[in-house]
């Protein structure tokens, strides 16, 4: 187990290094880094100072090492627009994004897993086929357009929910959260639904596939032969066995929803990391873009690592020695 953990850790560090090289090359090789990383409004003296500080007068490999050294010390550059360190700017937007993503995942599992279970147990019936086709529609709707239709119907026509912003927030341990106030909850509803819909479809399909396969397994047949009640079979035997892949996917989806929330945050003017990324791209605020990529990659790699360890701990059948090869 320890060997496996070490090996996976080394792999993750490898991925992070590869991304840092890719980002470095993108910034330093595609254009002139002086233009990309130093604000166009800087004076000549400031430019010289920045060039010296970023080591832009050094050879490429030494520039990369400086870049890496600074990144490891949390120095990912300073935003041109806000004049603050890029990293702290992004970190200050993180709670909003995380709140959105966690709520969307919760909603997706609460709706998706029961429906998927029902579909899987009633495999082939008209209702289950209709739900499965509907789920294809669920992940086909382009996220940005779906958000706009939600705004059009619920905000413009019916005037039930606010169309943008985060509403009133309450600080919990210094982190501002929306879901504890009524106003915040009203602001949260539409973005969460928008972000959750493709994941509801995913959860339905995943649970249904697992359940319809599990019903034909021997352990279900034996339980039935033993006279175990149907409800108990579903809850104790089927659900428990199909929960492992679901938990894994939920973990992986956490990472990818952070990326996908960019679209939802743009449509609903939700003040999270994704909105910051898009604004920074418009304003050519490269240090923030670079910092975002490195930070999100880091989160991503950490989440995947965690998922793998949880998976290994949850499923006794996972032979770690096999996975290592």
């Amino acid at each position, binding site marked *: 187990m320890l060997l496996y953990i070490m090996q996976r850790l080394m792999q993750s560090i490898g991925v992070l290094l590869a991304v840092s090289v890719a980002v470095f090359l993108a910034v330093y090789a595609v254009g002139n880094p002086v233009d990309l990383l130093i604000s166009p409004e800087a004076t000549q003296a400031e430019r010289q100072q920045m060039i010296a500080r970023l080591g832009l007068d050094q050879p490429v490999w030494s520039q990369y090492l400086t870049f890496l050294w600074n990144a490891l010390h949390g120095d990912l550059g300073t935003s041109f627009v806000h004049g603050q360190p890029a990293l702290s700017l992004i970190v200050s937007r993180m709670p909003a994004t995380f709140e959105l993503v966690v709520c969307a995942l919760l909603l997706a599992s609460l709706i998706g897993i029961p429906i998927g279970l029902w579909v899987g147990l009633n495999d082939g019936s008209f209702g289950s086929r209709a739900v499965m086709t509907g789920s294809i529609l669920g992940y086909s709707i*382009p996220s940005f357009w779906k958000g706009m239709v939600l705004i059009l119907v619920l905000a413009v026509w019916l005037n039930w929910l606010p169309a943008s912003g985060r509403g009133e927030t309450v600080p919990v341990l210094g982190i501002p959260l929306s879901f504890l106030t009524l106003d915040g909850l009203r602001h949260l509803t539409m973005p969460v639904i928008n972000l959750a819909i493709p994941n509801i479809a995913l959860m339905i399909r995943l649970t249904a596939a697992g359940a319809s396969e599990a019903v034909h397994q021997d352990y279900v047949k034996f339980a039935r032969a033993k006279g175990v009640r149907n409800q108990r079979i579903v809850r104790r035997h089927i659900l428990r066995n199909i929960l492992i892949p679901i938990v894994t996917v939920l973990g992986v989806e956490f990472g990818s929803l952070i990326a996908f929330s960019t679209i939802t945050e743009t449509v609903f003017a939700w003040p999270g990391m994704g909105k910051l990324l898009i604004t920074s791209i418009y304003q050519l605020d490269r240090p923030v873009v670079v910092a975002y990529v490195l930070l999100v990659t880091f989160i991503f790699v950490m989440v995947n690592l965690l998922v793998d360890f949880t998976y290994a701990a949850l499923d006794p059948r996972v032979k770690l020695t096999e996975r290592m090869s």
Partner: protein
Amino acid sequence: MSDPAIIQPITDTPQRRAILRRLRRRPSVKGSLIALLIIVVTGLLLPSLALQNPYDLSSFSVMDSRLPPGAESFDGQVFLLGTDQQGRDMLSAILYGMRVSLMVGLISTAVALVIGICVGLTAAVLGGRIETLLMRIVDFILGFPTILVALVMLAMIGRGVDKVIFAIVVVQWANYARIMRSTALSERRKEYVEAAFNLGYSRPRVMFRHIMPNSLNAVLVVATVQIASAITLEATLSFLGVGVPVTEPSLGLLVASGFDYLMSGDYWISFYPGVALLLLIFSLNLVGDRLRTALDPKRS
């Protein structure tokens, strides 16, 4: 789908034909195929169908800006789906936008498919260090959400049709490479491959003339769904403002251009282009899903 025939690998044409025939008869597939046919045909016949050319500034007038669906212009034209802020007929804009979306989706999928097939085949046939290296790259790319990689790439290199296609190819080829390698690996062990090698055929010949045709099924099924996701990706990138340029508005860009007018209730500028986009993506995904279930040996 209880026919045991489909349990067999579908390398025989009669079987493959029978499956496709049965598939075509299903109403959902039939509907999707008809929708796709209409979309492609209108895309081809475009200039003669559209009321005006949205690229030609002289063919529309600001006098007609933001008219609701069904309204008439001051010189008597009827705008079935309304007009946008510049007075462009939405129906014409959608038809032209659909062509851009379809073109980007098809070209990027085709390029990614060719690269993916070559990489996957090479990895499977050569094996060893080259295989490990190629598959590490594939895992690396597939480890990140497509939207993030494409978004950041375009933020660095700027917008443009060619650049969007490039970004989509970068995020998609790895899918095909992974599937191609795994099917090619199992084909490689079969006797006909050994026979071909023993006959003294060159490696590329065996790769492309023998192994490839027999492992295409899985890759092509994925390709149907990947066209849909390429189109979605392009639309999303264009909506976010890093995709195609304003001079070549795709469906995603049309949706974005109507966003500012949504609050005042002028929904048609964003709404209808999105419906067209949804129709396109849903049809492709539906056909892809049915194709996958029909060709899947496990579901019989």
